């Protein structure tokens, strides 16, 4: 059943999407601006992309960010999946409500508090602050997101599949790797991508726990923006936008294929 589009619908939709995407569009367009001034159009150019390519500080920050995101997402996916398994499978154990609450708490915790507490912790154990402290900090706050995503899939998982595997002679650990994991893989992958994105995006927590010499991309952009924006940042942001779009489209295609089997 289709309904005719009224003027109201069209207007609402146009303004809604404009509100969401016009700023991004301006950003992308001005990344190709030849002028040094952000608000004056000086003709088409890719010079800011070239300049970005030669900016050692930004490229180092980018490498740091990608490394931290990769490691922290991997660790968070491992522990988050385990936490989800524990929460779904062992429905009755002592202190379960407390444990559940503690897994979810980082989602609602103000980032400033998380950052500060982690900083105090790292100082008290005398850890040298840098790449690994940021990685650990990001793991601790992205793990709960992985747990939530994987848990939703596990709740719907038919456990008689595991019983059938065991009945046919498959020990529990092998059952997990041959039956359970392949079937929950889309949600584990989705959890990984979510953790990766969250880590890549974080400024506040990283600022607290990072040390001299290790700067992440968002921190660097933030610093540059305070010193006065250069169109180089527009170029960088456009590239990030491209990467994120490709990642999101790929993951949604992947999970769609996992749900609808190939005919």
């Amino acid at each position: 059943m289709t309904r005719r589009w009224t003027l109201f619908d069209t207007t609402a939709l146009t303004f809604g999407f404009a509100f969401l995407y016009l700023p991004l569009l301006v950003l992308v367009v001005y990344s190709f601006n030849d002028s040094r001034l952000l608000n004056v159009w000086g003709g088409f150019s890719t010079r800011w992309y070239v300049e970005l390519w030669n900016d050692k500080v930004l490229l180092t920050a980018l490498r740091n960010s990608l490394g931290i995101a990769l490691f922290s997402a991997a660790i968070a996916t491992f522990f988050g999946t385990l936490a989800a398994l524990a929460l779904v499978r062992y429905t009755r154990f002592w202190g379960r409500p407390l444990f559940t609450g503690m897994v979810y708490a980082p989602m609602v915790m103000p980032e400033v508090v998380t950052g500060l507490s982690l900083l105090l912790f790292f100082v008290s154990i005398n850890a040298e602050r840098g790449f690994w402290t940021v990685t650990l900090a990001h793991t601790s706050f992205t793990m709960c997101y992985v747990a939530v995503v994987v848990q939703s899939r596990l709740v719907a998982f038919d456990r008689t599949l595991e019983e059938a595997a065991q009945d046919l002679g498959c020990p529990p650990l092998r059952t997990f790797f041959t039956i359970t994991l392949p079937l929950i893989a889309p949600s584990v992958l989705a959890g990984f991508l979510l953790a990766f994105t969250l880590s890549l995006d974080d400024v506040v927590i990283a600022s607290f726990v990072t040390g001299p010499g290790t700067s992440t991309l968002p921190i660097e952009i933030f610093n540059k923006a305070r010193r006065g924006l250069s169109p180089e940042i527009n170029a960088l942001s456009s590239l990030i936008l491209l990467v994120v779009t490709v990642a999101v489209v790929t993951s949604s295609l992947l999970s769609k294929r996992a749900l609808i089997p190939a005919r």
Partner: protein
Amino acid sequence: MTNVRTDARKRDSLAIGAVRRDFAPWLDPAAKPLIRYEAVTKQYSDFVAVNNLTLNIYEREFFCLLGPSGCGKTTLMRMLAGFEEPTAGRILLGDQVVSGIPPYRRPVNMMFQSYALFPHMNVEKNIAFGLVQDGVPKNEIADRVAETLRLVQLTPFARRKPDQLSGGQRQRVALARALIKRPKVLLLDEPLGALDKKLRSETQFELMDLQVNLGMTFLVVTHDQEEAMVMADRVAVMDKGTIKQIAPPGQVYEQPASRYVAEFIGDVNIIEGKIAEVGEHQVRVTRSDGAGTLLIDLQNEPVSVGQEVAVALRPEKLVLHRDLPTDTPNVLSGDIWDIGYLGDWTIYLVQLASGQIVRVSRANSRRFVEQPLTWDDKVHITFASEAGVLLTH
């Protein structure tokens, strides 16, 4: 006793129910059971699923656990598969106590009610799964999978995923996967429950052939009495964690041990009464509704005068008459209250003077009937003394 016939036929020489083949190890005291449940109890925190139950199942037997949902039949099966452990008592498979052995080391395989096919593997991989776990060589796996696929007629579907199959095909994949390892016992949890009626009756006979040809022991859980009656060598009727009767299907139907079994299996009319006289072969029962007496053959269980009993009458053993016959000791009179025409059978519901409704079924062996019975007709129901079953509990 004057009215009682003393030349009653010797019941022992007569067969009961359908006789399929000469197989009755449970009657042989020297036969050794393959599966033994010894005083098994399974208690959950709030209820007892299986209560102090003892049961022997023999090799090559097709055994059905029959009962309403929640009667403990599935728990009984899952304890043999190893998914549940008994709270008390023990289970033996051959000479081995299986308690404490994990499911993946038990020589039994199970076909699940939901089939539990692995959705990410094709038919071939699903069926091969059990052999792969045992480390069987690759070429042997291929041979046995091909053979099993032929057995269940699924060869053209080997490369399909489970969600590309029909319900009947999925059922056969589940069956193939469970029997490829040739387990000592094959457990089947409601194996035909998800199939439509026509497919179900075809599959019943296929399962029976398979069981005989493979020489395997089948333990089937079902709530469908027709399924149990058709397939099983013996049926255990269960209620609230206990077994009410274990017997071949014909005996469960024709000689129910209790009112519960009589009412659970098939349709039955129960006439309440009190024993008035006890003869050598027959007893006279005074009806509680005050409408006379009934003459019923004595069963194995002894009864005494004055005892409260129930007489169970199967609808197909009752005969309808327009005029009161004179030569029969057992008459129930009433009006036709309702008629149900089923094609092969017609069901007449007759209301007695007491208000009780008695169900009578008549085979429609002729296409045309003179003066058919209709609503509110006065009728008399008669039955032979051997048609009634005396039930004391």
